[in-house]
């Protein structure tokens, strides 16, 4: 008997991670196919969070939608309402006062600080470094207090209204905010030092989930994920609101791995703290920041607008179209996580199963932002793998 054919059977393991999983507090399901320890394919299954928001916005009036779109994502709610409000303002030709613009930037930058801190804390937890997680979360409470002072709620600010913001900042609160930020800055530097020097973090994050700059633009990845790979994308450069007047640096690193993405977030946190300090010291006092909500126009002109904003996770875009009625004709939301998570399936391949949550967390997944989708990863087709099921059908 001569052997004329050898069939190699790959031992393919199917590991579902999520939607309820100790390492993932998000309703997403990663179906990981592994050969031994090596990941060969990842399917991102979501849709557990699809709430039909775009359809819902067509059924509600322009003003009610401000509160609905801030609930697309709780972590970056002010950014969502800012970009929607700016799109509506462009349709309606309303210009907020300079003070209101500064306050909007202040609220958005506070949000960036707390968002970057929480994802770094979660990263520490996923790596098994619970002490660091607890310390970062303790210091994050300072930012939550600052948000409470400014907006009136810890998480969901509901701070913006067409034509301005919904509450002004008085002198006492301004000093309190300044104190909080002054206290926060040394703590953040301490964590940067930990991330730069600690061996545990270094070993788990360096060289994991490498994305080349070319892949970033081809797959449309945005935000810190792109900036960690040396791609200089930042929607704030457009100078919307007061970003044209507040000085800031765009952090770009060329590490290309998970560690680089986390470091981009830490240095952006420092950058945001100094922006907030600048705003608090140079808050203009011309013009009222708070519009009278009972007197806002009730007529909406026909028109369309497309606004972009740099959310903590990357470029967030809204398209708003009005046909002259009370409700918008179409609102299209494209969130950063929608691109970052769905299009990044390629980056898991070749790593071990234990690295999958690390890589996912390094993209700062915000599943509620994604809002939708069951997507199969785009296979690059370098190697062909067969699952047992496919193999049996093929042998018939």
């Amino acid at each position, binding site marked *: 008997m001569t052997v004329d054919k050898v069939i190699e059977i790959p031992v393919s393991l199917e590991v579902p991670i999520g939607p309820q999983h100790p390492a993932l507090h998000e309703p997403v399901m990663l179906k990981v196919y592994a050969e031994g320890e090596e990941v060969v394919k990842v399917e991102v299954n979501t849709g557990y969070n699809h709430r039909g928001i775009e359809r819902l916005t067509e059924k509600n009036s322009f003003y*009610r*939608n401000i509160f609905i779109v801030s609930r697309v994502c709780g972590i970056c709610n002010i950014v969502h309402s800012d970009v929607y409000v700016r799109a509506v303002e462009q349709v309606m030709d309303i210009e907020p006062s300079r003070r209101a613009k500064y306050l909007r930037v202040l609220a958005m930058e506070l949000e960036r600080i707390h968002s970057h801190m929480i994802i770094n804390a979660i990263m520490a937890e996923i790596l098994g470094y619970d002490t660091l997680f607890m310390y970062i979360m303790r210091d994050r409470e300072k930012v939550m207090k600052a948000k409470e002072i400014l907006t*009136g*709620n810890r998480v969901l600010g509901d701070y913006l*209204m067409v034509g301005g913001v919904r509450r002004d900042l008085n002198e006492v609160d301004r000093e309190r905010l300044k104190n909080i930020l002054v206290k926060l800055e040394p703590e953040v530097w301490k964590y940067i*030092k*930990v991330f730069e020097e600690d061996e545990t973090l270094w070993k788990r994050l360096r060289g994991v989930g490498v994305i080349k700059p070319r892949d970033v633009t081809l797959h449309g990845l945005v935000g810190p994920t792109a900036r960690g790979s040396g791609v200089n994308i930042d929607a704030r450069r457009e100078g919307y609101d007061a970003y044209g007047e507040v000085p800031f640096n765009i952090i770009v690193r060329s590490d290309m791995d998970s560690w680089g993405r986390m470091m981009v977030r830490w240095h952006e946190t420092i950058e945001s703290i100094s922006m907030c300090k600048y705003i608090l010291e140079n808050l203009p006092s011309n013009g009222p920041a708070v519009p009278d909500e009972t007197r806002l126009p009730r007529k909406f002109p026909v028109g369309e607008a497309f606004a972009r904003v740099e959310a903590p996770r990357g470029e967030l875009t809204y398209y708003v179209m009005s046909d002259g009625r009370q409700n918008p004709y179409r609102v299209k939301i494209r969130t950063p996580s929608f691109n970052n998570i769905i299009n990044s399936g390629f980056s898991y391949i070749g790593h071990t199963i234990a690295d999958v949550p690390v890589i996912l967390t390094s993209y700062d997944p915000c599943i509620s932002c994604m809002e939708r989708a069951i997507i199969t990863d785009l296979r690059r087709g370098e190697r062909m793998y067969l699952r047992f099921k496919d193999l049996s059908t093929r042998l018939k």
Partner: protein
Amino acid sequence: MGKPSLIKEVLKWFIGRPVTIQYPYEGTSIEDRFRGRHFADLNKCTGCSLCAIECPADAINMEKLPEKASVPKNPRRIYPVVSYSKCVYCYRCVTICPFDAYVTTNDYKLAGPARLYSRDYSLQSIRGGGQ
């Protein structure tokens, strides 16, 4: 690359007083302007229903006032009842009200085994309503 640099911090807190707030034995500091429970003051409410129309969560229902309640200006004799379990505390009703009829508090202690409504708080604001 060096030693785990968090050790100093850990040791500092190991001997220091814990950062934990002893809630519920000790209160936490809540901002006065925190957006908590709110209800309509029936002395000012005219029953115009604007808050119910503008509420993004549809948490406000207009209900008939009880017979005994005496209200100064409310021809239709209806008043808004906020469902605290559905309310998202955006305070759109507070800012849109043309008569400033909403009373705001920073009360957040609403957890309980049943759904809560603002009915009793509103009726207590007028004579003959609360009984």
